[in-house]
């Protein structure tokens, strides 16, 4: 327990959760059951890629590497995943390729920043520009993904009244995996040896080094695990959520994810809550458009999720404190 619980900010994530639940609760009474369910379910669908993308940021930054190349990682892996799935007629192979692409992209980022001490913001920008250019150039219209993923209902949870139908049924495999992966990362980060070492490397690499921990290796590994998750998200969006690849499909998801990571205070569960809140707001806005709210210009409804999220998070987040060594390359011989 110790510090892990103390560093976990109850005030913030409890507040986020209670606001989210409250909004949901109001909605249940105001509208009918079916619409509530569909809004919550699509909120989860909107929120999950964001939540997973912010895990990439958390994996990197907690070990001391700023990665603004999440966007590019997702774009590249969505691209390779989709086309490999399309040509091989096998979405599983597509997903594996997407993940490998993510790992490879982050390996490039890791080499540039960790081994060669390059500015981390510039390295991330390079990856983003490269990904955008490369995927646009190689883009060919008319490909499709051959088959679809199986859909799951989680045995007991899906039977919970109100929430069960919207949260725990009709899930694609990657979405399902995400629901385990995120708490998993929290446990790894806060309860395991690997997590303690990762955090120490992100807070004070000098301390880790003198304790005999290999800072460079620790950072490389974490950034590449982050890359694998980034690849997974890219694949998730192109192969499961949307089922196609379009130019620059990420549309800022990677950057939004970084903001959510900060709002969640570099805590996987916090970032998850923030992402789901954002997803719910987006789903609500979509629902408002379906209802045909006529007396308000459409643009105002589309910005609602952003405004709502900014307000909630601004009031709940308070002063944030990033990992102390994030963004600083580690050099051994300092004297």
């Amino acid at each position: 327990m110790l510090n892990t619980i103390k560093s976990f900010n109850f005030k913030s994530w409890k507040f986020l959760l209670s606001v989210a639940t409250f909004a949901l609760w109001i909605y249940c009474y105001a509208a009918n059951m079916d619409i509530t369910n569909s809004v919550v379910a699509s909120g989860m669908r909107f929120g999950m890629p964001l939540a997973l993308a912010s895990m990439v940021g958390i994996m990197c930054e907690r070990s001391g590497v700023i990665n603004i190349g999440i966007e590019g990682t997702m774009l590249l892996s969505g691209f390779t995943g989709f086309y490999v799935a399309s040509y091989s007629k096998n979405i599983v192979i597509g997903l594996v390729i997407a993940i490998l692409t993510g790992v490879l992209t982050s390996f490039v980022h890791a080499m540039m920043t960790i081994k060669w001490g390059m500015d981390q913001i510039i390295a991330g920008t390079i990856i983003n520009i490269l990904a955008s250019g490369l995927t646009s150039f190689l883009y060919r219209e008319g490909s499709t993904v051959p088959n679809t993923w199986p859909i799951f209902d989680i045995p007991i949870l899906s039977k919970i009244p109100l929430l069960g139908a919207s949260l725990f049924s009709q899930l694609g495999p990657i979405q399902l995996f995400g629901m385990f992966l995120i708490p998993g990362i929290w446990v790894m980060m806060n309860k395991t040896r690997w997590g303690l070492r990762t955090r120490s490397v992100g807070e004070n690499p000098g301390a880790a080094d003198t304790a005999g921990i290999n800072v460079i290796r620790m950072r490389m590994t974490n950034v590449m695990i982050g890359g694998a998750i980034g690849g997974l998200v890219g694949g998730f969006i192109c192969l499961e959520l949307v089922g196609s690849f379009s130019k620059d499909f990420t549309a800022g998801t990677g950057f939004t994810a970084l903001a959510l990571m900060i709002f969640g205070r570099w805590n996987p569960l916090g970032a998850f809550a923030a992402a789901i809140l954002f997803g719910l707001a987006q789903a609500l806005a979509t629902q408002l458009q379906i209802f045909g709210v006529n007396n308000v210009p459409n643009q105002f409804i589309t910005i609602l999720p952003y405004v709502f999220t900014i307000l909630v998070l601004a009031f709940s987040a308070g002063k944030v404190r990033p990992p102390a060594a994030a963004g600083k390359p580690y050099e051994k011989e300092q004297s």
Partner: protein
Amino acid sequence: MDTTLLRIENLSKTFATVKANDNISLEVNKGEVVALLGENGAGKSTLVKSVFGLVKPDSGTITIKGEVIEAGDTAAAIRHGIGMVHQHFQLVPVMSVAENIILGDEPHKGAFISYAEARESVKELSDKFGLDIDPDAIVEDLPVGLQQRVEILKALRKNVDLLILDEPTAVLTPQEIEELLQVIRNLSSQGVGIIFITHKLREVLAVADRIVVLRNGKSVGTATPKESTESSLAQLMIGREVIFRLDKKEAKPGAVVLEIEDLYVKDDRKLMSVNGLSLSLHAGEILGVAGVEGNGQRELVEALTGMRPTVKGSFSILGEVATGKNPRAIHTMGVSHVPEDREKDGLIATLSIDENLVLNQYKNPPFAKGWIRNIAAVNSYAEKMIEKFDVRTPSGKYPINSLSGGNKQKVVIAREMSQDSKIIIASQPTRGIDIGSIEFIHNQLLASRDSGVAVLLVSAELDEILSISDRIAVMYGGKIVAILDPHDVDRTQIGRLMAGATQ
């Protein structure tokens, strides 16, 4: 039986063009406390970093218990039972004491850390070596002395045979230093060999079994405390005789130039740290403010120099109210400031020595004409200053960061003392610098005082306060608790006042 624990043979290390270590040989026996004494830049840190594998020496061998250890490999050093407590703590401030201590070798069940065992093992270590600490406390909330304790425990947990302490007392209060020296004695009686780096002679004489003196990267002599005195060691250290008693004329105090009335100032945590302080400073005197660090000295100095807002009360400079003025306005009123943290507040690390010497007057003639700077004037002025203040550098064009701590401080002193100031506020002016530079800076402060300038000297070094002050103000809990005459006061009396005892 061979009792030699560590044997360093002919170790050399060159950084760029500087020979940090030049053919040094050294031995440490079981349970022996060896003090490594030397000025800043003498190569003490490089030597012990080589032993611990943080620095890879160019040549030479390091043998522990008869086994040669691989150069530049920290993990190997730890495996061979070498532990090191760094000058700058290597702790993760946001983590708990236990987490910091177990880092790198965590008790675990599978992948999971066993926090119960971690706490247990910290307790065990604390008991064994008499180093009491709460394993669940967050490190950044602890005072410096306790943070150091965490560092020591961290090293001890690895079953060290040899413990290296790199300037462990530089940041400690007198009370904490006493405790640390006791800890060192305990450890050595349990058979741990200790290398203790310091440039404080008093400590060396108090705790060392053997003293090794380094100068300019070379080992220049070995001594025992019994046959040494402070002055004989100092002479070895800097290669010439040092006069500890300063040539000090009688002070001729004049009018009050700084008057502080009932001042209240808050610290960074928004807690009141200067608590209704009143004090007056006269022209031509050195008023030493003694006190354990953290009793509001920093906030007082920052308030007086305009760097920190005051809450209540006022202070006036030469009769004019200065409360609420900004640093430049206060500087213009005739106040010079030698800040406590020269790296953070005193110098701009990436600028040259020249530029740093004119930081507070770059916009005045002759250094500038309207908007246009006169670089030639800056350079020729800087050249004079470098000479006058004995800043050791090939040229003023070099970045300030190429200088050692003592020379950096000389740059700050040169800048602040070459003005027509009426008041010099000097905070920890000799912290972390070598004896030669300390002597120089003290003489400069005395010269200023003799020319009628008022000096407010804030220092955690009691010796410094006692040797150059004309009056001593003891600060405790944000107030001045006593004003003493250095001629009829002893260390213990001040020590008691500093610790909060009433007179």
